[in-house]
């Protein structure tokens, strides 16, 4: 104690022991975790061609992670589902299973958090919140949950006086009960993309889904929100077309197009299989091309938003290719005006004109990309 050198060595020795355990030791134990398949084969190895989890988030979602870190959301939100014996997280429906160390290996910022003034967010992407709902929550949480303590983030949005179809409607829960329309900035879109990407919906060899009994959560005092993205300024004929088109898109019985089966309800398609319709250059582009596909289908390799797809698309309709001119016009108008898309409507006359020009083409003779070389309108 009296010799400064010995004292210093002593106190660094004791600190060093803990360092060896929690920094060096822990690192050697799980510093090299890599994504793995949901199940291992009999030899304990990853099967060939198996999908590996976790999957890295990319693009908007990755930028959203930066926003999340910069805004300090970790101050009130955790991103970890605790083991069943250690907490109520799985019971509360905050995840299908406890979180494992492997779930976080691809994250640049690991923001586990240690305070829950807000709910856990590890699986917020699984809770079926639409993008609109998330935007409303970010702009003014109290418009959805009156007792929420989440800070409003109006600086992520532009307030709009003359709203268009894609703007988001907020019904403020303050005393004034005013209605506002806001447009998300790029930052807000990034943040929402990140939140939607937060999910631990895969199993791992070391942890599988937990069976829980259905706990019915009492109805939150949620102010009923109008999550429609359509604004009051759309003319009635357009609104009717969009509404009818949406019905056709979502219908799986005769009279419908069953489009959702492949392109999904959110227009996102399926990576590698079915191209997205949201933000798609094909959907927002040539109407004639869309009409032709709607009548005859599409096959072979195409490129959508720079990504290649190679599949077979039967012409929509049940049976395939059976949609009338009206129905085609409506469903095309719908896909051109939802999920952030905003493009001109398609009329039944335009469809009829294209149909006339294709007289003599055998039914079910699907188009290929090469045939559809109409320049983008």
């Amino acid at each position, binding site marked *: 104690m009296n010799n400064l050198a010995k004292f210093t060595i002593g106190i660094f020795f004791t600190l060093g022991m803990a360092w060896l355990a929690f920094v060096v030791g822990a690192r050697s*134990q*799980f510093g090299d975790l890599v994504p793995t398949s949901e*199940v291992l084969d*009999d030899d304990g190895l990853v099967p*060939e*061609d198996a999908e590996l989890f976790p999957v890295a988030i990319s693009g908007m979602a990755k930028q959203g992670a930066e926003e999340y870190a910069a805004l300090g959301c970790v101050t009130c939100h955790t991103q970890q589902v605790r*083991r069943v014996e250690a907490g109520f997280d799985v019971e509360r429906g905050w995840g299908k299973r*406890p979180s*494992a*160390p492997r779930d976080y290996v691809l994250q640049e910022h690991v923001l586990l958090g240690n305070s829950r003034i807000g709910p856990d967010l590890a699986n917020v992407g699984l809770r079926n919140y639409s993008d609109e709902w998330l935007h409303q929550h970010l702009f003014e949480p109290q418009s959805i949950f009156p007792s929420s303590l989440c800070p409003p983030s109006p600086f992520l949005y532009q307030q709009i006086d003359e709203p268009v179809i894609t703007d988001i409607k907020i019904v403020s829960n303050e005393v004034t009960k005013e209605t506002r329309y806001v447009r998300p900035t790029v930052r807000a879109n990034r943040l929402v993309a990140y939140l939607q990407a937060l999910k631990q919906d895969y199993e791992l060899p*070391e*942890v*599988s889904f937990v069976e829980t009994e259905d706990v019915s959560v009492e109805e939150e005092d949620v102010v009923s929100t109008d999550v429609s993205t359509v604004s009051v300024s759309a003319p009635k004929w357009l609104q009717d077309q969009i509404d009818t088109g949406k019905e056709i898109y979502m219908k799986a019985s005769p009279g419908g197009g*069953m489009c959702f*089966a*492949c392109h999904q309800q959110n227009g996102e398609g*399926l990576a*590698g*299989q079915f191209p997205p319709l949201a933000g798609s250059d094909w959907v927002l582009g040539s109407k004639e091309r869309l009409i032709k596909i709607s009548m005859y289908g599409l*096959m*072979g*390799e195409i490129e959508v938003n720079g990504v290649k797809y*190679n*599949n*077979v*698309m*039967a012409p929509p309709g*049940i*049976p*395939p290719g059976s949609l009338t001119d009206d129905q085609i016009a409506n469903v095309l108008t719908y896909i051109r005006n939802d999920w952030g898309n905003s493009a001109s409507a398609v009329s039944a006359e335009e469809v009829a004109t294209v149909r006339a020009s294709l007289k003599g083409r*055998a039914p*079910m*003779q*699907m188009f290929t990309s090469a045939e559809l070389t109409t320049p983008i309108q």
Partner: protein
Amino acid sequence: MSDDSKQIGNLPNDKGFSDEDIVKSHVELSKTKHEPTANFLLAPLVFVFVFGCLIFVCSIQLSHSTNSFQLHPPVEIVELSAEEKESLRLDRKISSGEKIFAARCASCHQTNGLGIEGQFPPLAGSEWVSADSAVIANVILKGLKGEIMVKGKKYGTSAAVNMAAVPINDREIANVSTYVRQAWGNDSTEVFEDEVSRLRDESSDMQDQWIGSELRKMFSDSFSQ
């Protein structure tokens, strides 16, 4: 320590417990033993006792809760018999096949396997599905063209299913074929990946799709209808 050390340190006179005195007296305390007392000193014993209890409690807690310093939390190890393992493997294969079917086949053949009359043949109860496993594997590998009869009805007047354009690997073909052969009341054998690989090699020279009638002839023994 003199009596006037009892005085609280006052301004500006620091007589009392000066820093020098503090240091010296505490150093003394560390060195010298206490004066003899009548009874034993209680305090050290109390601390030894506390220390001992803590060691005991801590050891128990340590052995209890560290999960033997393993990386992953404890999983219930269920020893499966060979049959159980086999059935689990088959379940997983069929489950994978179901996902593939839903993604790539259901748009035409429908999730209920009934197809669309006149357009896409059904798979439920189809003699093509329950024939030799090579039939379904070949169709997925290369596609099919020409008129065929399925369950007494005609299909495929002109449209060609261009399966070669659809990226699908041998394992996926094996999985989805097994699924189709065992769904909707179908009850046929499993399709194996090596078999699919062999068929792929054998048909690697083929540029076009299989002609339906020819494929049927090749495996006519296995067709039930």
